[in-house]
Structure formats: C-alpha cells, structure tokens
C-alpha cells in the first residue's frame, strides 16, 4: 500500500464570525487531484469553512489549523494563500465598477501564467460577450457563476474551493459549469471542494467523497452514492439529528 499525502488537511478547526462561533472542531482532508463535495443545510457553515481555508479575514480562526501541501497556512493572509494555489470561487462575487471582466482576467492570467487559457476558457464557459462589461455588474445568475468560475480557473488552482457554482443557474449554464470543472480538474490536476445544494452537479461531476456539515461540524462523510442515499431517506434534518443523537462527528 502506498502512502499518499494529503493536499489539504483541516484539523480541529473552530471559527468565529464576530462573536458567533460558526465552526466547531471541523476535520476534513483531501488528497491531490481529488474532488470532494461539501453538503449541509442552510447556515450550517459551509461558506465559512471555505472562507477559513482560503484565509478570508472576516472569519477568525479560534483554534485548530489549516494545512496546505504540508505547510500550516493558518496564519497566512488571503492573497498569500491564493498565490500558493488556493482559489476561492465566491458564491456572490461583488460588482466591480469600471473593472471589465477582460481586464481582470488578463490580470489574473498574468499572475498565474495562464494567458494561453483565457480564450479557451472564455469560450468553454460562454463568457465572451461579458468580457467587455464591468465584472459582475448586471450579470444574470448564470453569467455570474460562469464568470466567477472563469476567473477562478485562470488561477491554475491546486485547490479550488467552489461555493455553490450551480445555484441559480439554468440547465445550459450548469452543463457548461460541469464541463469547466472537469477541465480544470484534468488540465491542472486541481483538488476540489465543492459546495452544492443540488444533485444535478453531483451527477455530472463525480467525486471521491462527500462531507456533510451540520451545526458547525462534519457529521457524516462517505462515497457520494451512500451519502445521497442517507439524505434521500430523511433529509438533512434526519441525518443531522440521527448522527448527532449517536454522538458521532
């Protein structure tokens, strides 16, 4: 049996936003080039977990650590982690007045040496017509998600943290997004942690493991088929109550 080191290790991570403790002792790990899903009911702390891994300053790590490629990055700032290859795709990216998507893409591509992918990815994600517009300003739900994945891809991520890349998008956008995720995974060998609320994406992009987050902790993990089976039986409410009742984490 060969030992394969983990690219991402989240160890006993407790995180607060303001005075509210959102995550309580989360453990999660993902190996090189693996795809993982993170599921959970609304307000479970999924976005907070991705933010803590990425180093977003709004979230404050109280205890525990984030280890990336063997390096404890818990104290590293957001942009340093981005440079190391941790790319966070926002659920709701902000509107950037006067900053065209093209100029932002060029800037990101020049940082991560991905200029040769700009045209290909823009075509793949069908964002060519958005390139001349202010980033995210007046974009539809699908356009916003595709543009955000486009920019995230150009970071040549070693670890892509995708926060609901499929929410609020139509079926056509979803298939473009799924195709792009597969592309990033294959082309860059990216490890992925994807937050989703729908099974459509999970059916398009297969994963190694699914983690279920409830009330600030991972309460269940397993292969996608098994986890979805459990969720179909009793939903999040049932799974969270059942597992927490058993004292499991």
């Amino acid at each position: 049996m060969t030992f394969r080191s983990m690219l991402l290790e989240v160890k006993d991570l407790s995180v607060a936003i303001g005075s509210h403790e959102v995550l309580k002792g989360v453990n999660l790990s993902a190996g090189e080039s693996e795809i993982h899903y993170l599921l959970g009911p609304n307000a479970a702390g999924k976005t907070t977990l991705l933010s803590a891994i990425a180093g977003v300053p709004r979230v404050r790590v109280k205890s525990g650590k984030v280890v990336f490629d063997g390096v404890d990055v818990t104290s590293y700032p957001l942009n340093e982690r981005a440079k190391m290859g941790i790319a966070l795709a926002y659920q709701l990216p902000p509107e950037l007045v006067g900053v065209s998507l093209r100029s932002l893409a060029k800037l990101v591509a020049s940082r991560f040496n991905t200029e040769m992918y700009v045209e290909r990815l823009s075509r793949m994600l069908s964002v060519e017509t958005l390139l001349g517009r202010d980033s995210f300003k007046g974009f539809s739900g699908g356009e916003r998600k595709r543009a955000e994945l486009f920019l995230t891809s150009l970071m040549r991520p070693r670890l892509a943290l995708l926060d609901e890349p499929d929410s609020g998008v139509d079926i056509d956008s979803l298939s473009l997004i799924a195709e792009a995720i597969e592309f990033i995974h294959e082309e860059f060998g990216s490890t992925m942690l994807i937050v989703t609320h729908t099974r459509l994406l999970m059916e398009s992009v297969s994963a190694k493991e699914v983690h279920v987050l409830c009330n600030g902790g991972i309460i269940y993990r397993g292969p996608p088929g098994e986890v979805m089976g459990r969720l179909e039986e009793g939903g999040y409410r049932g799974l969270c109550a059942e597992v927490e009742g058993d004292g499991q984490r």
Partner: protein
Amino acid sequence: MASVEEVKRALQKPSPYGPDIDLSAYEADRAELVFKEPSGEVSLSARERVGISVDQATYVQVGETVFARAMAEKLFREYGVVVKPLFKALKEESVAQRLAWGLIKADQDKYTAYAYLYGGEAGYYVYVPPGVRVPVPIYTCLSLFSDNRVQTAHNVVYVDEGSEAIVTTGCLVPHGVRGGLHIGLSEFYVAEKARLVFAMIHSWGEGTNVRPRTIARVSEGGEYLSYYSIYSPVASIQAYPRVHLGRGASAKLVSVIAGSGPGIYDIGGGAVLEGEDSSAEIISRIIASRGSRIVSRSSIEALSSPAKGHIECLGVMLDNKSSIETIPVLRTSVEGAELTHEAAIGMLSGEKLEYLMARGLTEEEARSVLLRGYLTAEVKGIPPSVKAEIDRITEYVVKHALG
C-alpha cells in the same frame, strides 16, 4: 451685454457656490507675448504634473505671459486651423471679435468681472474651418507661477460645420508653488454636425484657488465631449460648466475628481436641452482622500421633447476625514423628456478589496484596480486617440491619487 458700470458692480458679486475669494489679496501682471521658450522648470512641471510636453503645445501661458509657438501654429495652419493667443486674435480675426464674451456674461460674478475689467485677454483662440477633421490633439498648457498672483485666461474655440477637433489643456502650478488664483474663462462653439472633444487635466497647489467659467453652445447635430480631471490638492476650486444643446445635439460631460488634500472641490456640470432630440450625459467619478471636501453638482434641464438626459455620480472615500456631497438636479415642464439620475457614494468596499486579494493581489494592488475602475468612466463611441488621451490622464490621476 452688460455696461462697464454693471461689470464693475459685479466685482462685489460672489459666486453662489464655493467659498468666496478676496480678490484684493492678489496682484495681476500685464498680459504679454514673448518670443522665447518657457523655462526648463515650466517644461519639467508640465511634463511631470499634467503629462503635457511643452514642445508639443500650441499654446503656453505662464502667469499672464504667453509664449509664441510659431512652429506649432504653422503646423495647424496647414489644416486651415487657427491657434493663437486671444489678445492677438481679437486684433486680427473678425470671428474672434464676434465670439468673445458671446456666451459668458462679464457680470456673471466677481471672477468674470475681474477677468473682463483687468484681464489682458490672454488665453487661446482656436478656429477649425468647415469640414476639417484635425488629426492630432491641440495641446495647450497654462501654468501659474507665483504665490500671490492672479492668472486670467480667456479661451475661445469655434469648431465650424462638420469639423472635428480635440483640445487638451493642462493647468498646473509647479512643485513648491502654494498660492495663486486662476480664473479661466472658456467659450466653446460647436457648429452644425461638428464635434469638439475637450480634455482637461488640473494639477494645482495646496493654497491655490481656481475659478473656471465655461459655457459651450452646440448647434444642430453637433457633439461635445468634455473630460475634466483633477488629482492635486487645492485651496478651493469651484466650477459649474454649462452646455446648451440645439436640435439633435449631444453632450457628455465627464468629471474625474480625486481630492487629495484638505481643500474644497465644488465641481459640477449643467446641460440645457434646448432643441428636439438633444441629449446629455453628466458623469462624475470622485475619490475623496486626506480630508478633501467634494461637492458634485449636476443639472439637466429639458426645454424641448423628445430629449434625454442622464446624471450619474459615483464617489468613494478613502478615509473618514473626507466628505462627498452630490447634488443632482433634473428639471423640465415638457412632456416626453426623459431625465434620470443615479448616484452612489461610500467608503472603498472591504468586500471588493477582499475579493481581489482572493485572486492573489496585494491590498495595494487591489485598491489600485478598484480606484482605476472608479475613475474609468464609460466613454463609448470616442475615437481611439481620445481614448488614449483619457487613459493617459486616468493613469496620472490613479498614480497621484494613490500617492
């Protein structure tokens, strides 16, 4: 036309906007034309502070002294374009005599009155004959060089039927000059189906007071694009340029104000839609920092219909010692006029900084990207040469606004 007595009485008439200035605190020089090159200090300051090469400039004025630009004047004469000091044009050109003081009233306020009574009609006169598209920008440069002096400049531009011209003006004080008063009067005539692009960059000193007075008249089917920017500290600047639009005429007034010191920037723009199918856009982009107080006034009045007007103001504060106030006014009593406005002001968003940092940018780089975005007002349909000019000015403003 007001009588001399009425103009003299107007010397006591403050502007309704901005702080009042005691004109007796300043001394005026006599306007003169000299046949030599401006000093190296002027050239260096013009290049460094407003990005204009004095060698390229067709008109250079330092204080009340105008430097003859024989070569540049000759270059434009090849296109039939006249560029010369106004005091010279008033002696030699009947058109200039007819146009000067045709739009600006000498008794408008104490500053126009002062320029009328005591100014030497320094400033530039530009005439572009019918059907001529001037292929290069007409660069002009005005520098104030002494702390206690007043500089008056009276500019008259006539772009005749079907012609096009770009006029770029840089106004500055050199490094180390802190005071002075600049009174700049500009009268722009845009004839039928003609187009005038006027780009201006200001770089003053902490103690400088600035009172520009600008009126443009755009005839049927004509187009006027004004791009104004200031990035320096100033004691106070108060300007409210106005444009009158005839049938089918259009105007776009863009102001980019980067307040960078504890001065007052009271800058606006007004449009009067006089003819049917006329339209105007007034766009302000504001960055307030280091204790600057910025008032952005905009007004559009529609007297005919159909007519369209839009006011847009975006402002961002970089510290809590600075302030921004926006005052948009829309006015009409005619049916079918479409007038709209939108405004948003606030601190530079931490969320946006954070977003860009998540893309690997440092905080300073993220700030620069956002500020550049704020300042890059959308100016669609402009020729590439003007776009290049505006990009150049924007780079200047961002560079200096960020210190």
